[in-house]
């Protein structure tokens, strides 16, 4: 602390030796009043900022979906509920708490699913969204939503376009190969030298989530086609 000692000297509050009973009421009252005012102000600010925040979040999501589904016209949000995919939830089920994937349309035709998933990478969790076309069993694109990988090494998974672009048209299940070992198979992804773990994590994320979701997607496809 600087030059000011709490409760000392002429400017500070007197060292108040008041009886405690009176205090506890004042105490509660003050806190309650302060809390109420604070809450009121916050509600106000919340109301004012929330639209912008939600809009931004939606925009980020939209852009990501645009990117990985190659610019669809619109997209539907599908929920994983009760072991299957559904666009409409029954009453009383909060969609925000369910896993969501997105189905994009171009010219009224479905173009593919955008799926977000995550797994621990080299430093921390990596979050990825990718587009998947079940009809051709191929990926449409991949985008890293969140990662804390080492700048210069691991962050190539989002910044190195030659790595990111490989996913367009690749066919899962994906297999990571070292540079120079590729055989030209469409399931192969070149690993970034020096960021083997981060690269493999992306591949794992896609493979694992597809493994889990493919049955649901196939099911949904049947429903949709019907």
């Amino acid at each position, binding site marked *: 602390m600087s030059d000011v000692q709490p409760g000392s000297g002429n400017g500070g509050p007197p060292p108040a030796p008041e009886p405690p009973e009176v205090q506890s009421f004042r105490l509660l009252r003050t806190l309650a009043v302060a*809390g109420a005012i*604070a*809450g009121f102000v*916050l*509600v106000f*600010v*919340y109301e004012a900022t929330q639209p912008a925040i939600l809009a931004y979040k939606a925009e980020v999501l939209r852009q990501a979906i645009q990117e990985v589904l190659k610019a669809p016209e619109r997209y539907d949000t599908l929920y994983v509920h009760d072991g299957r995919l559904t666009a409409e939830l029954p009453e009383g089920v909060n969609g925000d708490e369910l896993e969501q994937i997105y189905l994009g349309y171009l010219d009224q035709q479905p173009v593919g699913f955008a799926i977000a998933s995550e*797994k*621990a*990478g*080299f*430093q*921390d*969790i990596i979050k990825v969204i990718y587009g998947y076309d079940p009809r051709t069993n191929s990926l449409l694109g991949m985008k890293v939503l969140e990662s804390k990988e080492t700048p210069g090494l691991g962050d190539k998974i989002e910044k190195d376009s030659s790595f990111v672009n490989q996913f367009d048209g690749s066919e899962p299940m994906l297999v990571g190969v070292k540079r120079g070992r590729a055989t030209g198979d469409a399931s192969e992804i070149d690993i970034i030298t020096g960021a*083997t*773990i981060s690269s*493999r*994590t992306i591949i*794992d994320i896609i493979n694992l989530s597809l493994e889990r979701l493919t049955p649901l997607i196939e099911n949904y496809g049947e429903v949709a086609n019907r």
Partner: protein
Amino acid sequence: MGDLMWILISAMVVNNFTLFYFLGLCPFMGVSGRVYTALRMGAANIFVLTITSLCAWFLNTFILPYAPFLRLISFIVVIASLVQIVEMTIKKISPTLFRQMGIYLPLITTNCAILGLAIFQTNRGYGFLQGMAFAVGAGLGLTLALVLMASIRENTELADIPEVAKGTALIFIIAGCLSLAFMGFAGLLSST
């Protein structure tokens, strides 16, 4: 199970709260002079972090969906009050334990490691068990960092530190060195 293990290890060494997230630096600087103190501070930290995780989980599940703007305020108020209550209970039940640990509790109820844990847990959407693993891991990590720092500082007390490095400058450089060394844990248990 593997998930819980990863959360624990990650919070403890891979993304150590002190050395990688820079949380709880105040006690790190202030209470790391003696190993004995550091150990007790660490224990108090584990304790409060666990309580915090509990509170955060409770609030996140039952209260905050209805009033998200109260997140910060409610975290602070609830955590502080609960720690206060527990502190008084300990004081009643076991005065010895209180003497060992209690004096550190007020120091850390409102520090950033505690609030940080609550916020991280919320942002990552951890459930109850995950939250517990996260809290224990973070607490163990804080304790580890504190004890390492304390024993190194006790050691450097006897060294002939140059005038310009005395005091906080050296502490930060040591912390930097520890942080460098902890980079070795990166990627632990994560994949391949």
